[in-house]
């Protein structure tokens, strides 16, 4: 895990962090740096060639017969060679940096994907899949762009000025100094723009306005169906309109904040010769070797325009530096969430009973808001343990804790006497099968979707599981039966059918412990009947923990646990609980009332 930041060292940001991320591809990155520096140096060759040519012409003047044509031609070739070298080297530099970048991108995405499965699931709820997706799709992608393009350009934009300054000083230090003054002036103009406090403030406001506009537009579209249904598009449009105008106002303010600095920068880098000229006049009027002086003077007048190109690049680079910082930070924010600790001495469970031992749990870390408080019970092998209670009572929390989607805050959960935290993750997952209420099928073939429960299952085994889960009939009717890809055109699976595929997935996994979230109750009658039959197959001989909504379903359960506000309030069999006249009995009354409800338009 070299790519994750170690806790001890100071976290790196921006460029340094990008380099750290690409460290597996050091050679390529190094190559890119060297090649792009060489390319930058080569880019000066045409200027020098032109200068040499002028020099040889002038020294031959006015008798052009003396002109060594071979020499002049060789300067032409030199210019061409410089151009080709520049482009070729740059191309190779970009190519190696891209190889490094695409490789790093792939590694990073896989690392990120792997990491988010190892952090407690709760983070997915608080962070939201939209944001995680954005990080994977956009923020991580920007690291690619940075390593591929900005990095070689950055190296070139460091090398080029250094080489340039060396050349400038090597020919004549006085002209060199004058050029340097010009370069510094350009920088001053730029940093006045970047550095000023008002500018930073505007930048922050601009970013905030941009975020607000994005949120407003998402809310606008998301709520559109409701807003239309209640004839209120005008007011909701007004809200978005305000956000858009706010954004425009700030983006203009932000951009116009540069309206003097940017043109000043452009003007300076294109007019550095104006500093050279007075120096030239002063030097020229006092020189004895006029030809020598004229050569140098011309060299500088010829060369300084090259400065513009180099400085423009630096300008562009510094902009992208500001962006990469934020992108990398957003990615690291997630990568820095600690993974759930994995035990170094995994133990295997000696049995299949699931026991909660004084378990307390909070989602938020705030001990005031406990989702579970001091819950203890045992679900025995071969028995059905049902969990009931009003929504928010803690039913689903219990289910989630068994597969260690979160870790308990207090107490412990054991399987066969072993704390789930002392088991290897893979071992735990082998022990427990889950059938959730929110069924998710992947856009893969039905075969693959079922096989997810057990990657080594043969096609025959998959079909057997599908038959047991009452899926075989409808799967056989699909265009490519088991090879039909979920989500393709013309493949419509009803909620009940999806549910049964999920059950087939659990059947093929064949774990000793089954956690069931009794799903969609009234999808449609025929489906429901089949789901029930599928459930029966799945549960045979297992330790079953079922979260029930329809109380009639669990009348025969071996044990019913009643949860309310995170507390276990009652436990027992159906008949015992009903005659006890407590919370469960009350729920049962409501249940029978709800079941008998009929709609009519008459007054109530």
């Amino acid at each position, binding site marked *: 895990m070299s790519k994750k930041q170690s806790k001890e060292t100071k976290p790196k940001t921006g460029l340094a962090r990008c380099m750290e991320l690409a460290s597996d591809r050091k050679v390529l990155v190094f190559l890119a740096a060297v090649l792009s520096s060489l390319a930058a140096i080569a880019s000066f060759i*045409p200027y020098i060639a032109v200068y040499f040519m*002028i020099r040889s012409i002038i020294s031959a*003047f006015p008798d*052009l017969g003396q002109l060594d*044509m071979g020499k*002049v031609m060789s300067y*032409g070739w030199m210019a*061409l060679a410089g151009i*080709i070298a520049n482009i070729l080297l740059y191309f190779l530099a970009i*190519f190696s940096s*891209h*190889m490094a970048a695409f490789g790093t991108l*792939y590694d990073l*995405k*896989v690392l990120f*994907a792997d990491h*988010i*499965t190892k952090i407690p699931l709760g983070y997915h709820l608080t962070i939201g899949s*939209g944001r995680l*997706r954005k990080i994977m799709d956009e923020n991580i992608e920007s690291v690619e762009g940075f390593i591929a393009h900005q990095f070689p350009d950055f190296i070139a934009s460091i090398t080029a000025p250094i080489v340039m300054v060396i050349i400038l000083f090597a020919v004549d230090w006085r002209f060199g100094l004058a050029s340097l003054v010009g370069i510094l002036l350009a920088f001053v103009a730029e940093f006045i723009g970047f550095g000023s406090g008002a500018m930073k403030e505007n930048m922050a406001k601009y970013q905030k306005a941009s975020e607000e*506009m994005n949120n407003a537009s*998402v809310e606008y*579209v*998301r709520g559109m169906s*409701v807003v*239309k*249904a209640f004839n209120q598009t005008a*007011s909701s449009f007004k809200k*978005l309109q305000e956000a*858009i105008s706010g954004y425009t106002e700030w983006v203009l303010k932000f*951009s116009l904040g540069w*309206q003097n600095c940017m*043109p000043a920068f452009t003007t300076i880098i294109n*007019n550095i010769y104006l500093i050279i000229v007075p120096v*030239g*006049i002063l030097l020229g009027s006092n020189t004895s070797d006029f*030809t020598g002086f004229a050569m140098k003077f*011309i060299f500088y*007048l010829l060369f300084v*325009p090259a400065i513009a190109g180099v400085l423009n690049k630096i300008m562009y680079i510094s902009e992208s530096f500001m962006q990469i910082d934020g992108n990398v930070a957003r990615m690291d924010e997630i990568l820095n969430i600690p993974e759930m600790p994995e035990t170094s001495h995994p133990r295997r469970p000696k049995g299949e009973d699931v026991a909660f031992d004084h378990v307390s749990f909070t989602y938020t870390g705030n001990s005031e808001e406990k989702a579970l408080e001091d819950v203890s019970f045992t679900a025995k092998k071969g028995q059905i343990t049902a969990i009931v209670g009003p*929504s928010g009572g803690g039913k689903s929390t219990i289910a989630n804790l068994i597969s260690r989607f979160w870790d308990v805050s207090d107490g412990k959960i054991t399987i066969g006497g072993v704390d789930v935290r002392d088991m290897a993750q893979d071992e735990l997952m082998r022990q427990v099968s*889950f059938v959730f209420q929110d069924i*998710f099928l*992947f856009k893969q073939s039905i075969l693959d979707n079922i096989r997810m429960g057990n990657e080594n299952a043969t096609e025959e085994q998959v079909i057997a599981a599908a038959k047991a889960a009452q899926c075989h009939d409808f799967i056989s009717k699909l265009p490519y039966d088991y090879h039909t890809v979920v989500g393709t055109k013309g493949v419509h699976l009803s909620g009940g059918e999806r549910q049964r595929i999920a059950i087939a997935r659990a059947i093929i996994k064949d774990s000793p412990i089954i956690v069931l979230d009794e799903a969609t109750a009234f*999808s*449609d*009658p025929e489906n429901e009947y089949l789901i029930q039959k599928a459930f029966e197959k799945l549960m045979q001989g297992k330790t079953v923990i*079922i979260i029930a909504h329809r109380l009639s379903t*669990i009348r*025969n359960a071996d044990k019913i646990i009643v949860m309310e506000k995170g507390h276990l309030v009652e436990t027992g069999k159906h008949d015992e609980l009903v005659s006890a006249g407590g919370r469960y009995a009350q*729920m049962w009354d*409501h249940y029978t*009332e*709800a079941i008998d409800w009929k*709609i*009519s*338009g*008459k*007054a*109530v």
Partner: protein
Amino acid sequence: MSKLQKALFLSDKGYKDLKKAVFACTLTNLAMLLPFCVTVMIFSEILTPAANGGSVQWNHIWMLWGAGIISALLVFLAAKNDYRKTYIASYQESNATRLRIADHLRKLPMSFFNTKDLSELTTNMMADCSSMESLLSSTIPPLIANGITVTITCILLAFFDWRLALCVFCTVPIAFLIIWLSRKRQIKLFEKQVDAKLEASDQVQEYLEGMKIIKSCGLSGSRFKTLDHALLAMKKIAVKAEMAVGVFMSSASMVLQAGIGITIFVGAVLLTSGQIELIPLLMFLLMATRIYGPILSILANLSSLLNLNVVTTRMRTLLTTPAMAGEEKTVENCDIELSHVTFAYNQDDVIRDVSCKIPQGSVTALVGPSGSGKSTISKLIARFWDIQKGTITVDGKDIKTMEPESLMSYMSFVFQDVTLFNDTVMNNIRIGNPNATDEQVIAAAKAAYCDEFVREMPDGYQTILGENGSTLSGGERQRISIARALLKNAPIILLDEATASLDPENEVLVQKAIAKLVEGKTVIMIAHRLRTVVDADQILVLEDGRLVESGTHSELMEKKGLYQRLYHIQQESLGWAV
């Protein structure tokens, strides 16, 4: 409308502003030529004595320096002018585009907002406007201006010496030809890359949504093969595309800059044969080192212009999606009639030749297996889509001729997926009727059994619900949507009975709230639990988009058809126990 305006999808004002911006940029480019002219003249001042003897006129050079200062000032003013013109114009234009899109969106049919890739659409919409913004501010105007300036320079230089001008510019068309010829290949690779990216992005989405299953099946990271394959494929195509683009671009810019070498060769020959003076040659040499910069930037930006097409196509798709037409009409009664209604989302009919009458004040239930068309029919009545054949009328008026919002004002929906806003509970309910007083809102909340749980929230009715009210349970959300409908008090109620499991207490409350809502109204209910609708005035049984049976509960039970069979199966499964 000019081609450019269409291609960039600009408003008339935006197009005018773009022209101004191009003009401003051209001015800047021309102003940039001034330092060049001054430099050449200084050359001439120094070289004339060096070559012909005599002394340098230093005061001439001082004067040229003064001219240089003035020209630098002009450059500054021109640059400032074009900066303002391009940025202000582009931001104003994208402001207008955003508003145009937002305004158009609200006129689109309801059905548009039920599509899955909706969130993608909105993000694209804003992102596209932003890319348009930066294209209009920093890419397109300088690009066009560069083209213009290079042409002008070329013509001017030709006056001095057409042979050398030809040397400097002969490489330009060749370089463009390379890019032009490789364009198809580039676009193809670019499209492939976009596809690979989309595929990878889809897989990421799947991975995130299926997280629980992935975790419980031990398929994290590269063990989840489809994601791994998609990422690898993306890597491969990216290298390929980058390689190809790099090769084309590099060869084009090499060819282009070879002009420097050619100018040197030809210039030397012309000079020695006395066909050109030293100073004009110097000018050409100097020009050759400078002229290619702007052209290179055009070449480098060509790929982002290819991208432009994608951006504007998306915007165009959105803005050309037709809005629903219709006039504002009032209806006297709420008798609804469907007559030979046939409807298909795409090609396959999902509703086939359905005819029925729904009298005012009656309760009509739509039942049938999943996928039979129950919810489609209820949405067609609300004109989420327009039907292909037949008519739907309310009070005898064809709803196709009614303005959707005015039709909507006669209807309330209570659907399963309840959208809540990031606002107070009070305002979330008030959506039903913006003119309602706080008291009326609270009264509706009480009638819908919301009052109790709302009061338990930290700030009561002023509690902010947060993004889509994630803290509320399913039953609570439904009751809020019922409170909204109560407040709206529309004569027609479209109900979709919840399929998701609510806990019994919540369910009882939702049922009670619905009973209040539907009192005396024309009710169309999508029923999943057949026992709920045994007292309905009319039950319409759908199968495969056709109306197969209709009548009251007892009539249908006697018929011993689909309804009777479904009813029995459901009774049986209700009694199921583990």
